[in-house]
């Protein structure tokens, strides 16, 4: 999964630059889709909610309005390995203007669940030992 971070990098651009980066980005996305490398992707709206606290008692308007860290969208890739994903990330047209792309492997099983299961197995082993 590619997570695009930063949603203010487009602010300083001239209309022409902005138009170019946007059409480059669309061409990049369409190209990856045609090659079967990208199976989905969407921009995310700037506003949203941040839910936290026990039983979700805190619901705040998202702090992601304008920041370098905020996630602005994602691509879902189907590739052979991490290196291929990184090579694709390097082609992102927004990089030149300060966008940051986070490349994350998608896990089959949640690592925390795995850890919980290992504990149970360990306990069973301990009980029978």
């Amino acid at each position, binding site marked *: 999964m590619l997570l695009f971070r930063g949603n203010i990098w487009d602010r300083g651009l001239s209309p022409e630059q902005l138009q170019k980066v946007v059409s480059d980005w669309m061409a990049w996305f369409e190209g990856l889709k045609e090659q079967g490398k990208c199976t989905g992707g969407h921009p995310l709206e700037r506003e949203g909610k941040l839910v936290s606290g026990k039983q*979700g008692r805190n619901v705040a308007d998202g702090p992601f309005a304008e920041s370098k860290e905020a996630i602005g969208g994602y691509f879902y890739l189907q590739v052979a390995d991490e290196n291929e994903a990184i090579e694709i990330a390097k082609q992102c047209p927004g990089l030149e203007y300060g966008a940051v792309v986070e490349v994350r492997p998608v896990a089959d099983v949640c690592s925390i669940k795995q850890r919980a299961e290992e504990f149970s197995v360990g306990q069973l082993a301990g009980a029978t030992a």
Partner: protein
Amino acid sequence: MNRTNQTGEYMLLFRGTDWHKKLSPEDLEHAMDKVMAWFESLKEQGKIKAGQPLGAEGRTVSGRNGRTVADGPFAESKEAVGGYLLLQVDNLDEATTMAKSNPMLEYGIAIEVRPVLEKCPAFQHAKGQLLSKAAA
């Protein structure tokens, strides 16, 4: 506020990857059971389009032509995204209500609820600027 978007898709981003570190094995197992039950129930209701945990490792690519490739700073932090769910629901309120019912909140994670867009806001911005320039 009861906004809707065109896609009806909302993304939940689970933030915080170290919430489980302080739990005992029993508490962890209990927490995981609750999380799985929560997930299965949403799935049965047909509210989930996609969802996966993300591996803790990863890379951050930045700079012109991606010249800087760093190990992600997201191994263990409160901000790191540990996984996502793509929901198909009526509006932001429904998505937020679902987020609120997640059992992991009790252990300190935060959930970002984001409407999924059909078109990129930067694209709209570019179009608007060009139009106003053409009109001037």
